[in-house]
């Protein structure tokens, strides 16, 4: 049985969040009943907070401030429906008509300044370079140039959008050097997936994307192969169930895809 002194002696550890779980439980119950200890704890928490001064102040990258404010503004806009910009409706036709394409081109031109800012971020630089390479590589593979332009505009718009959600996928034991980034717009569900470092599959196999919402079975996404430099850019549609907290995974499957995952997982996002 703990005495009041025992509880008091644990307050410092509690303030530091360094208390062992069993002690935490006991002290927490005591705190509910003891004003003296709650006041003491509050003071010790202020002292604890001052330990932050033991770390040398450091300057973050310049882009961080802008990204925070952009995200905050986007949240404000989402929460005040009257002010929401008219977003394209999700229709069965996946690709924009010529008019919206022209608007998208103008939009990209306007964002040139933003792209310059974002280029300072080394990661973004690598992804932009990869996107250029990918677009070059796919020049000859697209059926129509209109399709290609649409994909380019969409991918660039997503990458430059402050509103787009990003999910990082990490290489699994089957492909430890692989990585991928999925960027999507929660309003429209349009997504772009960029992969890097995936080995080429054999001729009878391909990679498949899976969306795994919490507690549900995997939903199949696109089937794709990588180009000669190990990259792929896939335009995707996020199922609504997968927009919040789903795991995204990539496995190897037979070349026409599979209804359920059968092959080794090569990439996966962390479980939230």
């Amino acid at each position, binding site marked *: 049985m703990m005495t009041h002194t025992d509880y008091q002696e644990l307050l410092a550890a509690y303030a530091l969040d360094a208390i062992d779980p069993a002690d935490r439980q006991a002290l927490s119950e005591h705190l509910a009943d003891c004003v003296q200890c709650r006041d003491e704890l509050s003071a010790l928490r202020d002292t604890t907070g001052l330990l932050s001064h033991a*770390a040398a102040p450091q300057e973050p990258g310049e882009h961080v401030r802008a990204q925070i404010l952009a995200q*905050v503004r986007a949240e404000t806009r989402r929460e005040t429906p009257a002010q929401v910009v008219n977003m394209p409706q999700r229709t069965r036709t996946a690709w924009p008509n010529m008019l919206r394409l022209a608007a998208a081109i103008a939009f990209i031109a306007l964002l040139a300044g933003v792209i310059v800012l974002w280029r300072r971020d080394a990661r973004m630089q690598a992804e932009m370079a990869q996107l250029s390479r990918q677009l070059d590589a796919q020049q000859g593979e697209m059926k129509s140039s209109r399709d290609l332009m649409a994909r380019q505009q969409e991918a660039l718009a997503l990458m430059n959008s402050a509103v787009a959600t990003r999910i990082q996928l990490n290489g699994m034991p089957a492909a430890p050097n692989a990585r991928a980034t999925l960027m999507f717009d929660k309003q429209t569900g349009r997504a772009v997936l960029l992969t890097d470092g995936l080995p080429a599959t054999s001729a009878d196999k391909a990679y498949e994307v899976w969306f795994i919402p919490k507690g549900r079975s995997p939903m199949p996404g696109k089937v794709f192969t990588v180009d000669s430099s190990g990259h792929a850019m896939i335009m995707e549609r996020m199922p609504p169930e997968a927009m919040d907290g789903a795991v995204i995974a990539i496995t190897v499957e037979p070349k026409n895809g599979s209804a359920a995952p059968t092959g080794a997982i090569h990439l996966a996002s962390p479980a939230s």
Partner: protein
Amino acid sequence: MQAEASQISDNDLLKAIARGDETALAGCYDRYRLILFGLILRILHDRHEAEDVLQEVFLQVWRRAKDFDESRGRAFTWLVTIARSRALDRLRASGSRARLADGIEQEPRESIGYAAQDALKSEEGAMVRRALAELPEEQRRTLLMAYFEGLTQTEIAARLGDPLGTVKTRMRSGLMKLRELLRDSRG
């Protein structure tokens, strides 16, 4: 904008943020980014991750400013607690991937100019560092391990090979002594 922002108290800044004032959030970022990023970086040792966490922190500040209760503690404490918690969450989520200090955070030097920072904060920082230096080494080490590495008393005892009781005493004595030293220096 920066000049006006520096006149506002921390409490008023948080109140403005709670009202949805984006300028106030920007002001809070300008005032606290050096301390908060330094803290997060010291915990994570990785600049890119630390920048991600810094963004998470300010989003949380934006969303939760209305929950800050000035009768329960300082605004500064509230802010650094969010930063420390998010950084430790990220540290634990990354599993046991080895984190090597890459030498980019040094012991704080007083010669660092805090151009955009509130003069009071840098004074407070200097006071805290002086007080920490006055603690017995074992007490200081215990506090810093708990704070920056997120270890429990048992984990610290195991790491140092010391009895749990000794660690408990050092942690308590260290934090109380620090509080005393700072109370004295504030007068």
